């Protein structure tokens, strides 16, 4: 066996291929403002232009520096787009103009810039991504402190946290990163000469920022980043070219986020570790019943941390656990082949201290259970800055909750005292405590742990006040009473804790049951849906009710424009233009857009693509009453579930439609073949006789006797008439098929119709004695010509299939409303299993060779014509079981009496 040759890694090749249609991104990376990135960028642009590249300056900030401005001269500059913001006009990159201009290379300064609200994207790097997608090369600039994962590090070095960051994975997509290096001394010099632009608002903080120590550290960071980037390039090249090397194993790093204020810091730390190890990483939060009791801000912090993880190139996952968070985490970690765990040490402040008395911290149990993992415990600093209005709102909400709890506690303790009072001389002191414990249990169930604790203390005080000597004081004189009180307090706290936990678990179970139920309900609804419309309606309703929002589903119309197809509670009358743009964006990019996302965040609606395995089929729009609700993992999970179901349903409907279409096609194909066969056979057969007989006569040199001549002529004539009838049938069939048959109904004597049919078939029927039993007074309300044709067809069949000499009987009966016309022959009969099918188009009873030619048209037309009159046609065996009897059931005509005659 020869060793397997070194094959290029498919993933790496794919990444290369994906780059093929995109523009190339070059980033000038600097350690700090003022190192000359913009200058370098412009020099590069000039060089490229000299080389014949079409260069456009889309946006460059000169910050009033003359050397930089001088470099701009002679380069095509794109006008900026001015957007109003807080009463001022802000000049931003005109993305649409740039996309329309389509140069080969665009210069866009400040990679990390945040756009004015109302722009298409929240961040400039998103604009740049779109420009690259359009196939335009881009050159841009960024400082090291704007790199997302270094944000913490820089903040800890300089004490300044910048808000504008570029996600690492975006930076990683750059094809080239060029480091603009300047020694701290040179930079300090430039600063002194006023060559560095310092934003006014930065003020004092920036003075510290440009200290030599800081600059040195930043420079080192920048150098390290650029160096690691070189590493990555080499690695990528090796992989895509199949060069053997020490490949990283498929390890994974998992970071557990539980503490809201430190979650983001933890995410950044995890990202750096994963980056260094070059392994994929996952950020996880675990939703527990307790999670529900967290404040809105804390939940938002966790959500934001997950979003951050996604922008940093990690995977964000939300798990659910009823009680054992650690077990859930570890199970998930094992499932995902995780080797390294990153967890934060819980801060011990506030309630956390108290809570830890009662509950073993999750992280300790994680460490205990994580025997086979490499565990890193990080002690992060809280970075959550409390915003004043939010705090006030939270406090107000909390006060309301506390007030309610206090009030209920007072009520419950009063009732408990009232209940215990008459008992206190009858039962031992300890037993009275049970009454209070019961009260504490109640409060705990309603208000959770905090309520239970308040209840326990209140109960303790009341118990002490009323039932321990000295009565009506809080003083205690007996030692045993002290012991009893202590036991009471401990029991109350314990009971309350249990009750609060019970409450949480019940609530969480209810919530999960509700989710399951609605999802099940939804699945059931769409499983029974037969139209795509029903599926979409069910989806819209499900999303709206589950997320407590308004929902919309948009699908492209034939021209590719998105239009609303379903909505809950209803379709919107008109959408904001921003919404329309966001929807279109979500649809074409297969990414969420609108409210709460990075793209068009000012749009009132949030749009999420509705994608099947193959393609995006539409977008789902949601509008939250509560603006702070966004696309968190919970929402995303729900939308994904809905998408899956809808995709399956739509696929199923499509499959059904395809099946039906192919069945119809097969059917019509069969019919076409039968028609072709019938036409070629049934047109030719009579023509053979006609041509044969006539050529016989034409070639006659006088040898034919008059009898032969008559016989030949009669044959030609009979066959020509047969051909005429066949053509008539074809015409009738066509008109029946197209529904183009107009009935000219009139009351007519059935005997007349039968008489005309017999006359038309005089020759074919010559060999059969015909008995007619049609009373004169039977009238039918039909089109005499068409029903005449039907009778002709039945009679012709009888004449054709019944042996010569056998009688054909035509009889009619009526009950006043309908008339039954029976035409019976003594032929071979129709097998019972065929008695329905003989009326199918082109169906012929198979009876071996030698039977007279049939067209398979005649009876089908009989049925068509008779049914067009509201009648019915049946085939059954003859009276004594021999031969065939065809029954035509026709509407009877009312007797007419008004003669308009005055005798």
């Amino acid at each position, binding site marked *: 066996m020869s060793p397997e040759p070194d094959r290029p890694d498919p993933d790496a090749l794919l990444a290369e291929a994906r780059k093929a249609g995109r523009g190339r991104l070059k980033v000038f990376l600097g350690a700090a403002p003022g190192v000359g990135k913009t200058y370098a960028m412009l020099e590069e642009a000039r060089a490229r232009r000299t080389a014949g590249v079409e260069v456009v300056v889309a946006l460059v900030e000169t910050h009033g520096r003359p050397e930089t401005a001088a470099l701009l001269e002679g380069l095509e500059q794109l006008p900026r787009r001015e957007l109003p913001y807080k009463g001022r006009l802000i000049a931003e990159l005109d993305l649409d103009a740039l996309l329309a201009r389509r140069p080969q290379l665009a210069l866009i300064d400040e990679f990390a810039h945040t756009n004015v609200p109302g722009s298409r994207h929240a961040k400039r790097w998103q604009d740049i991504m779109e420009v690259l997608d359009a196939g335009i090369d881009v050159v841009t600039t960024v400082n090291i402190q704007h790199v997302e994962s270094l944000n913490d590090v820089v903040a800890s070095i300089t004490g300044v946290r910048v808000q504008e960051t570029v996600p690492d994975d975006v930076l990683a997509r750059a094809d080239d990163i060029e480091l603009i290096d300047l020694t701290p001394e040179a930079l300090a010099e430039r600063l002194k000469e006023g060559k560095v632009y310092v934003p006014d608002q930065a003020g004092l903080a920036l003075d510290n920022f440009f200290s030599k120590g800081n600059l040195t550290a930043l420079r080192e960071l920048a150098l390290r980043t650029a160096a690691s980037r070189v590493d990555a390039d080499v690695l990528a090249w090796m992989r895509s070219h199949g060069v053997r090397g020490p490949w990283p194993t498929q390890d994974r790093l998992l970071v557990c986020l539980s503490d809201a204020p430190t979650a983001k810091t933890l995410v950044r730390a995890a990202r750096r570790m994963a980056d260094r190890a070059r392994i994929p990483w996952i950020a996880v939060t675990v939703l527990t019943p307790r999670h529900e009791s967290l404040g809105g801000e804390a939940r938002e912090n966790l959500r934001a941390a997950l979003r951050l993880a996604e922008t940093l190139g990690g995977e964000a996952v939300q798990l659910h656990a009823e009680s054992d968070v650690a077990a859930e985490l570890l199970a998930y970690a094992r499932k995902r082949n995780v080797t390294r765990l990153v967890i934060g040490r819980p801060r011990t402040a506030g309630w956390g201290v108290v809570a830890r008395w009662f509950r073993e911290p999750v992280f300790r149990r994680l460490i205990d259970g994580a025997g086979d993992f490499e565990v890193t415990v990080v002690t992060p600093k809280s970075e959550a800055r409390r915003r004043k209005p939010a705090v006030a709102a939270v406090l107000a909400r909390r006060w309301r909750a506390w007030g309610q709890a206090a009030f209920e506690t007072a009520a419950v303790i009063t009732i408990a005292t009232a209940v215990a009072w008459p008992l206190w001389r009858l039962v031992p002191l300890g037993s009275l405590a049970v009454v209070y414990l019961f009260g504490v249990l109640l409060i705990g169930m309603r208000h959770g742990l905090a309520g239970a604790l308040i209840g326990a203390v209140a109960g303790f005080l009341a118990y002490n006040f009323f039932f321990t000597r000295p009565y009506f004081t809080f003083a205690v004189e007996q030692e045993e009473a002290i012991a009893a009180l202590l036991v009471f307090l401990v029991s109350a706290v314990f009971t309350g804790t249990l009750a609060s936990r019970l409450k949480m678990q019940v609530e969480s179970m209810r919530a999960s049951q509700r989710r399951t139920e609605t999802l099940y309900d939804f699945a059931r609804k769409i499983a029974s849906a037969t139209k795509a419309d029903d599926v979409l309606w069910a989806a819209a309703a499900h999303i709206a009710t589950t997320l407590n929002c308004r929902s919309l589903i948009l699908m492209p119309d034939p021209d590719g424009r998105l239009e609303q197809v379903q909505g809950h509670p209803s379709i919107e009358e008109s959408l904001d233009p921003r919404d329309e743009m966001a929807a279109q964006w979500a649809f074409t990019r297969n990414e969420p857009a609108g409210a709460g996302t990075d793209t068009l965040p000012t749009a009132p609606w949030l749009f999420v693509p509705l994608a099947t395995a193959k393609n995006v089929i539409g977008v789902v729009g949601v509008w939250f009453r509560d603006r702070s609700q966004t696309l968190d993992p919970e929402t995303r999970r729900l939308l994904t579930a809905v998408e899956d179901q809808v995709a399956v349903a739509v696929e199923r409907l499509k499959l059904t439609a395809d099946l039906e279409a192919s069945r119809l096609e097969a059917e019509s194909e069969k019919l076409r073949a039968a028609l072709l066969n019938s036409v070629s056979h049934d047109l030719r057969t009579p023509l053979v006789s006609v041509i044969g007989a006539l050529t016989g006569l034409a070639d006659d040199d006088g040898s034919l006797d008059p009898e032969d001549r008559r016989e030949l002529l009669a044959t030609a004539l009979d066959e*020509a008439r047969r051909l*005429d009838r066949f053509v*008539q049938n074809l*015409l009738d069939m066509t*008109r029946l098929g197209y529904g183009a048959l107009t009935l*000219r109904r*009139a*009351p*007519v*004597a059935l*005997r*007349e119709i*039968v*008489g*005309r049919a*017999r*006359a038309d078939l005089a020759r074919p029927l010559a060999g059969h004695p015909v008995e*007619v039993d*049609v009373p*004169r007074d039977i009238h039918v309300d039909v*089109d*005499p*010509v068409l029903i*005449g044709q039907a009778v002709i067809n039945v009679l012709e069949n009888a004449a054709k299939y019944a042996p010569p000499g056998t009688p054909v009987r035509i009889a009619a009966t009526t009950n006043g409303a309908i008339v039954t016309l029976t035409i019976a022959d003594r032929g071979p009969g129709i097998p019972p299993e065929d008695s329905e099918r003989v009326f199918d188009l082109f169906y012929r009873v198979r009876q071996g060779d030698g039977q007279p030619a049939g067209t398979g048209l005649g009876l089908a037309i009989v049925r068509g014509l008779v049914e067009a009159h509201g009648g019915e046609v049946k085939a059954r065996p003859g009276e004594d079981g021999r031969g065939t009897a065809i029954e035509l059931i026709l509407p009877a005509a009312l007797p*007419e*009496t*008004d*003669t*308009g*005659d*005055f*005798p």
Partner: protein
Amino acid sequence: MTEAVAARVLVIEDEVAIRRFLRIALPSGGFAVAEADRGRTGIELAATTAPDLVLLDLGLPDMDGKAVVAAIREWSQVPILVLSVRDAEAEKIAALDAGADDYVTKPFATGELMARLRALLRSRRAGAGDSPVLQAGRLRIDLARRVVTVAGAEVKLTRKEFDVLALLARHAGRLVTHKQLLTAVWGPAHVQDTHYLRIAIGHIRDKLGDDAGAPEFVVTEPGVGYRLAP
């Protein structure tokens, strides 16, 4: 055949094969033939040659058949026999309403065509010297005395029944449309009351001993009218 001079038939028909066989068949029945392959030339020939009969195909390439009928009717009462296919009932009736006298459904037997042409000629000539007594097979109608006999036996008819039978008899062998019958017998106000006609015909048949299933005297042309067998 007693006609000394062959009646001249103008055939307006675009199909060469049909014209060819008519050119052979018609003279054998005592007709002289003139041909036109277009409606317009047909109208010209009808004006210039004053034929005794016109045989007109309704499916002409250059103009609508009933327009040809109407054009000829502007200045001539020459009998017009229309050739039509079975499915073109509406067209056929329109042509009859425009002034055509009878129709033959394609494909037709030569004998049938001859009979129609002769019936048209006959009723035209009969119109000149109105004979008071009409004879059709066993049926005899005395118009002046309003007496009908079948094989010598008198048949009692109501007034309307007699009028209907008399009208059919005056045009024996020729189609008489519902409209013509209703207008003549019941008056123009009753052209839609075809049921009067159906009942009258039913009574006439009963009284004459005629069988609708194999009529001897009154033949139904479904949806169009009746004719008395010649």
